[in-house]
């Protein structure tokens, strides 16, 4: 029961942003095709998605690895910061999910369009 709640909350965090990323990826790809060639659009859009995904993944793992230490440093240096490891981890998971969504959408839709052409 507890495990299912744990999993649900994580799926909700990543899943929502993943779907948003997929939507943005599809819209961006179709919109880009109005002005550029398929390969140019897929390359640039996939790279943007990869940048967001990589940044999110790096931020997430960085938060898990160093988050508590950074909290301690903030406390000791008397920095009035609301930054917490948990909030950073959740935010970065959303960012990574969003980037992953764009990458996934570009890969699937790009391949589909390529096979049609």
């Amino acid at each position: 029961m507890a495990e299912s709640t744990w999993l649900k909350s994580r799926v909700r965090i990543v899943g929502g942003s993943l779907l948003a990323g997929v939507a943005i990826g599809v819209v961006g790809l179709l919109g880009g095709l109005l002005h550029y060639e398929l390969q140019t659009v897929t390359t640039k859009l996939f790279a943007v998605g990869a940048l967001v995904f990589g940044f999110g993944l790096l931020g997430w793992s960085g938060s898990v690895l160093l988050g508590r230490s950074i909290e301690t440093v903030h406390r000791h240096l008397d920095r009035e910061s609301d930054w917490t490891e948990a909030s950073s981890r959740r935010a970065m998971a959303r960012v990574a999910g969003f980037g992953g969504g764009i990458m996934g959408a570009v890969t699937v839709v790009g391949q589909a369009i390529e096979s049609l052409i």
Partner: protein
Amino acid sequence: MASKWFVVKRLLLLIPVLIGISTVVFAILHLGGNDPAAVMAGQGASQEQIETIRTELGFDDPIWVQYTRFLSDVSQFDFGESYVLKPGQPVWDSILVDKLPVTIELAIYGQLFGVLLGVPLGVLSAIKQNSLTDHITRIGALAGISVPIFWSGPLLIILFANILGMLPASSRIDTQYFIEGPWVFMGNELPLTGLMTIDTLLLGNIDAFFSAVEHLLLPAAVMGIYSMALISRMMRSSMLEVVRQDYIRTARAKGQGQKITMLKHGLKNAFIPVITVIGIQFGTMLGGAVLTETVFGFSGLGVILVNAIQAGDYPVVQAAVLVFAMLFTLVNLTVDITYSYLDPRIQQ
């Protein structure tokens, strides 16, 4: 000591860190306007030659194919071949293996400088709170945090090399010394480490060792100033927090002397947040290495990275950034393990 599971968990976390870094590097290089095939072909190349290179290296494959191939190669430590700096040569064997020890040595000595000065200054400042010593140390720490490397480097060169003539301003060792391996240990020939101070000792050349240390003093000081300032500030704040704890009061009430109480009970506990700063600072050190190496004429990973970016040598850029990231994460893993040794509650 850190439990096995704790270490394994930390090691597993390195995987997403490295995937994240690789992905960011891959994305940035593909978002840039340069065409790697055109860079490789050179200025006078025809469009046909560029297209041939593009096909041979797979640059005309769909980007998701290139991405998975890139991740697969990186996971096997295959960083490809250099396009421009050493055309056709493997990046790891012909470039990084030589340059990495230069940067590591610089970062280690910079960090040593920061720790060896920062910790005693922080403790002194805390013990003599609100005294003249404390004020001077705090002003010094503030100045150290505020001074950028590109300013402190030339300034120290002017003072110690040009005006006082005490220390050399560039290179890793005097030109009269020639350090070349292998070194012999118990009849076996072993390769040198590439760390000049260690290699001179391994070869038993004490004069060369002192020359290498002399050449490292200024760059290490430049790299360590910021670290020293931050560590001393952190140490002071941490010590002040620790000295107010009940266990310190109890030790004093039982008749233990102030110095022993501070060293035995205070220092170890005050070190916990400082260890964190040392780990995080290592990343700043590596970033600072780019500037320090340039200012002091060291041919390390930082200089290679800048040259590779300017030349558009993508495999070298990718490899150098990944190596920097790996170093940073490994240092932080060590810090985590030390942290859990100092405070076993961390493991839970």
